């Protein structure tokens, strides 16, 4: 290993402000040669901003960066890459429609204006051979799985021969097995003399792979520790600022009748493809059924089919004793089904409209708010204010535009409008994605309370820990089928990971 005490990077007093928020407030960070340095913090702590400043995407408002002993100022990511710093983004930042080779060539200094595709393909093959990560240069990126796309993003960074590689939440789209191979690759990179900085909010990852960890909270550095001298509990306390309960107290499950029954469901996905194949499951009153799986294996289609937003090709859906297979979405909503979709900002709220508009969604037809299609403004106003207060949505007034609310508050609003309709079935897809710890705990507590009230909850999540903590039973979705069903108490993480990856089904691999 290289000289472990040699400091490659020093960031001093970094400040970065955005309208309305100070993302980084005087952050100090140093990274040594040959180490894996984790950047730990909850959503919104400032980790991605700090690394974006480092790799040249943002300019800091204050502070300095000293790289290999010299002060530097990056005007662009290209400059940072030229000096040896590369970043693998959480969303990969690849051009989906272009091929692997074209993505690798983009932005690189070429000898002339001519774009040589054969040269690009040769380069891809060279780099992938160097690092033992095989990939076909001619494949369009959008045809690759998440894990393979990440490989392309990594190769793109490695092709620039960087000395420091930054990873932003790299395991969020991987199965446990894929995450393990990623860590193996990181260890070999470090062994070859590179330094790694990786952003995460997962404590176990920090403990398993990192040499040192810097904890960020609210834009400031709380502490930097050697991982062998600390433990998850201490890290969690530093990350959140108070003692965090690791296990949510859950009353034992006392399920009632089946609230939702799905039998042999087949639906279409993208044009020409089948998304769900012969899928069957059941959710009973008073229980939470978790759906595990790599995103893109039919989760959205399942939720939409149940909610009446996607036509069913064959099979049946029964809710509360009614056959709702071909019902319209409005009718299903009136029956008592709440749907909190994935990506709330995009799919569940109207950012340019006010909170009143957003809160009365789904209740905007008929009594009591709109008898005969005409709004009763006083009633609506009282209803909205009552809900916003009851669910503690922090906003100046119901006329505030939704886009001015934080993610946590938006999620509260969506929960408020869905729960207040007293649904018998709640479908929630990735409800805590992108939320800070406080909001995440709130959402999870709400879901448990609904369950305790005797409602049925179908929880779809890419976060296995969340599923394990909240669900009573867990079903694994792969290629549009349920490939396994276990009780949460007996769940084996590795087994679930294998099922997610398709190893347990004689089928094409998932995603």
């Amino acid at each position, binding site marked *: 290993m290289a000289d472990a005490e040699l400091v490659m990077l020093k960031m001093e007093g970094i400040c970065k402000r955005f309208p309305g928020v100070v993302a980084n407030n005087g952050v100090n960070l140093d990274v040594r040669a040959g180490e894996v340095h984790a950047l730990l913090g909850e959503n919104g702590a400032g980790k991605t901003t700090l690394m974006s400043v480092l790799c040249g*995407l943002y300019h800091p408002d204050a502070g300095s960066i000293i790289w290999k002993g010299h002060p530097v100022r990056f005007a662009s990511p290209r400059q940072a890459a030229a000096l040896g710093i590369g*970043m693998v983004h959480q969303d990969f930042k690849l*051009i989906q429609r272009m091929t692997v080779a074209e993505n690798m060539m*983009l932005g*690189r200094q070429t000898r002339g204006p001519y*774009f040589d595709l054969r040269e690009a393909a040769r380069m891809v093959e060279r780099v992938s051979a160097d690092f033992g990560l095989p990939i076909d240069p001619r494949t369009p990126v959008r045809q690759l799985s998440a894990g393979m796309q990440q490989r392309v993003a990594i190769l793109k960074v490695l092709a620039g021969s960087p000395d420091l590689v930054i990873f932003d939440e790299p395991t969020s789209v991987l199965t446990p097995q894929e995450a393990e191979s990623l860590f193996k690759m990181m260890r070999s990179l470090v062994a070859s003399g590179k330094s790694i900085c990786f952003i995460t909010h997962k404590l176990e990852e920090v403990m398993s792979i990192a040499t040192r960890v810097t904890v960020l909270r609210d834009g400031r550095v709380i502490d930097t520790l050697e991982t062998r001298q600390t433990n998850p509990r201490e890290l969690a306390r530093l990350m959140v600022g108070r003692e965090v309960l690791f296990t949510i107290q859950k009353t034992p499950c006392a399920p009632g009748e089946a609230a939702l029954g799905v039998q042999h469901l087949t639906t279409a996905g993208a044009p020409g493809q089948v998304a769900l194949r012969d899928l069957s499951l059941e959710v009973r009153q008073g229980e939470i059924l978790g759906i595990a799986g790599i995103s893109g294996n039919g989760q959205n289609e399942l939720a939409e089919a149940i909610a009446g937003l996607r036509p069913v090709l064959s099979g049946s859906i029964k809710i509360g004793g009614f056959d709702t297979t071909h019902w319209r979405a409005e009718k299903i909503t009136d029956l008592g089904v709440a749907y909190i979709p994935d990506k709330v900002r995009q799919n569940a709220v109207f950012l340019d409209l006010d909170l009143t508009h957003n809160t009365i969604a789904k209740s905007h037809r008929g009594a009591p708010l709109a008898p005969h299609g005409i709004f009763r403004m006083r009633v609506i106003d009282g209803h909205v204010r009552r809900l916003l207060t009851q669910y503690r949505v922090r906003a100046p007034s119901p006329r505030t535009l939704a886009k001015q609310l934080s993610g946590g508050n938006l999620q509260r609003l969506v929960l408020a409008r869905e729960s207040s309709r007293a649904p018998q079935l709640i479908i929630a897809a990735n409800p805590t994605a992108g939320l800070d710890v406080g909001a995440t705990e709130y959402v999870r507590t709400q879901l448990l309370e609904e369950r305790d009230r005797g409602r049925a909850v179908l929880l779809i999540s890419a976060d296995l820990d969340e599923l394990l903590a909240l669900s009573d039973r867990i079903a694994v979705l792969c290629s549009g089928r349920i490939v396994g069903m276990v009780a949460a108490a007996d769940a084996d993480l590795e087994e679930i990971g294998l099922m997610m990856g398709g190893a347990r089904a004689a089928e094409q691999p998932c995603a």
Partner: protein
Amino acid sequence: MEQSWQQLLSASFLLALLSSCVRMAMPLLLAGLGETFAERSGILNIGIEGTMLMGAMAGFVGSRLTGNPWLGLCCGILAGVLMALLHAFLTITVVADQVVSGLSVNILGLGLSTLAFRAFFGLSGQTVKAPGFDPLLIPGLSQLPVIGPILFRQQVLVYIGLLLVPIAYFVLFRTTFGQQVTAVGEDPRAAESMGVDALRSRYACVLVGGATAGMAGVFLSLGELRGFSELMVAGRGFIAVAVVMFGRWNPVGALLAALLFGFVDALQLHLQAFSITSIPPQVLQGLPYLVTILAVVSGVGRGFIPSALCVPYRRGQ
């Protein structure tokens, strides 16, 4: 005068028709090639109509004042670039709505062009003349049977337009600039993270679009119609946007689409001269617009739309 159907299918009629087809396709092709670049980079410019009008006016005025149609062409291109600069500034720097910006460019183009024309030549009814482009016969090739009259006895601007197709294709698909443009039109944020200057690429493409739209306008005022009136573009700018889509955002596709629309335009023009079975002229005049609607409804090109087209992009989140 009634003509017979046989005369309709005669060789001379068909040759004239195809020759007109190439001519009428040119404004659509020229404007469409530039707009292909603009839309490939993610910017929709429905202001081409007003830009073409400005180009037509500037070209005509420039040619009249200098006596040289080539200088008129330069004026037309310049006018197109200036109009496009306004649209580019509004959509790329101000990040205003692209449709609204395009509409305002159209309105300004209509007003400025007619105002400037009247300012130079007054409100008098007499027709003003300016030196234009006469058909240029390519020696040798123009004598070839069939394709001679169709392709090689056209005006210079037609040859320029046809030559621009392989050039545009090469630039778009074989150069770094072209690859960067495509990347920016798919995902400007990802492209910028790879070191591409998305804003600069977009400006370049929109300005190219303005230049070719200006050329298309000059083709109308100095080549085809020889004059200027505020009704002379007659929706060709909007049809050019349909050409881009129908051509799948590809220069060669744009050529084929322009030829198709040009054929319909030529057909209605020649049929009007024939007054076959008293088809009312309005029906024939409406054919190009109807065909455009059919083209847009057909869904050709839908899978090729640049993913970031018309999506506002602001740097640095």
